[in-house]
């Protein structure tokens, strides 16, 4: 079925080093439905970023089969079926905000007039309409990241890949952008694969949380959150949210975590 955004079967990645092969990822079985929000979480070296890079065709899988919307990852990249945002905003410093957002459109040959219309839409979507003429060094880290998200959404992709996009931001900006992201994905209907090392972030955003573990990198658990479509500040204080956070934490640690007051 081509309605699946991502379909990975037995995917593995081995890096050749001087001291021998390093298995970064092995036996990954994962499907992401169209419009679904899936987080990849795990400690450093669990291969979550590697898996995202394989989906984006920034690296090539050394084993298994990986399909994006029913196509090989390489073809999906050439067809621009996904948009991507990294931990660093990765804006080009000599381009204005508008020109950075327009970069993918420009490279794919969209006319100037169409571009400026689309950029205005995208800037409004991420709440930066007043800043389109600024340069990246005039923006805060959170604003830069919003520009990067607008750029990732420029081609109206059905899949959004995000590699710890809020990892370098302070907690308040982070929570604000998380709420913004749930609104944006609801508006665009795009599926999201979201790499993070923050448990609350993964639970707050996701339909399903994929728990991974290192040496070798693999998927150890997939937890549906079942938190519904509305993700707002009330959710952060609800008991089911805390239950999910606990569930993910226990899945990460492999056993129920002792509470400090029970020791």
């Amino acid at each position: 079925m081509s309605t699946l955004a991502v379909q990975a079967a037995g995917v593995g990645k081995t890096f050749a080093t001087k001291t021998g092969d390093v298995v970064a990822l092995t036996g990954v079985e994962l499907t992401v439905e169209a419009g679904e929000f899936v987080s990849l979480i795990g400690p450093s070296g669990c291969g979550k970023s590697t898996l995202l890079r394989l989906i984006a065709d920034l690296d090539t899988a050394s084993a298994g089969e990986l399909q994006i919307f029913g196509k090989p990852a390489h073809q999906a990249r050439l067809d621009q079926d996904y948009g991507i945002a990294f931990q660093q905003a990765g804006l080009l410093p000599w381009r204005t905000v508008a020109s950075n957002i327009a970069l993918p459109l420009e490279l794919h040959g969209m006319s100037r007039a169409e571009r400026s219309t689309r950029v205005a839409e995208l800037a409004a979507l991420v709440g930066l309409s007043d800043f389109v003429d600024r340069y990246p060094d005039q923006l805060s880290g959170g604003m830069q990241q919003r520009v990067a998200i607008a750029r990732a959404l420029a081609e109206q992709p059905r899949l959004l890949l995000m590699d710890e996009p809020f990892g370098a931001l302070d907690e308040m900006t982070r929570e604000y952008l998380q709420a913004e992201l749930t609104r944006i994905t609801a508006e665009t209907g795009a599926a999201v694969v979201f790499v993070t090392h923050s448990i609350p972030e993964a639970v707050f955003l996701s339909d399903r949380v994929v728990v991974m573990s290192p040496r070798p990198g693999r998927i150890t658990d997939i937890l549906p959150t079942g938190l519904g479509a509305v993700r707002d500040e009330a959710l952060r204080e609800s008991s089911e949210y805390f239950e999910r956070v606990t569930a993910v934490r226990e899945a990460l640690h492999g056993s129920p975590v002792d509470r400090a007051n029970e020791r």
Partner: protein
Amino acid sequence: MSVTAEGSAPPAWVRVVAPVVVGLVMVAAWILVVDVLAIAPRALPSPIAVVNELLLRSGIIGEDMAITATNALVGLAVGTVAAIVLAALAATFGPVDGMLAPLVAAIAVVPIVALTPILNSMFGASSQFGRQSVAAIAAFVPVFVNVLRGLRQTRPVHRDLLRATAATGIQTFRVLTLPTALPYLLTGLRIASSVAVIAALVAEYFGGPADGIGTAIATYAKSGRAALAFAYVVGGIAIGLALFLVTSLLERLVSRRKPV
């Protein structure tokens, strides 16, 4: 008021006035030593005499300046273009880099001006070509080194982004590699502009046609017309300063945006 005082940085007007004052004091001391006290050696003319010669012979000094400046500019242009092309090749193909690296190192350590007599006899003493080649070779090195470095400064996140955006090699070069290298090119160009003027001028001391600033300085210094020789030196400074200012301005315009 105290809010504007950032550290102990002097206000803007001091930074402009201070060097002017230093210059005036030095000229005053010079006049004192040469004209008032008359204790200077014969070879050191009075600044007043230098200015007189400058005004009196501005026509011929201008002509010689044009020749030296043209040689420097031709050399700068040729050396820069060659450096950009070769640096692009070296950055793209590893083996080319391996082939060029020792050659550039050799060019960098050889006193280029020393080649002038050889180049003059190769291309004929009546041609400016020898001088222009010296300026070109001298300008080549800083541009090549800087551009090659600049072409390698693209950041992984930007390369990933363009790959993810399915950009072609040419598109990546145009929107990423070239703009990243541009500030480095202009730094190279700024250094090369001074080097090219010095090379073109000093090359004139070693033969070739009987024109240009360097030839005039050598001739008048030897024949005891120190004031005129100094007037030509002022002309040489003007050429170097003009080129330096233009390239500095270009550099500042291009590298206005800090990386984020």
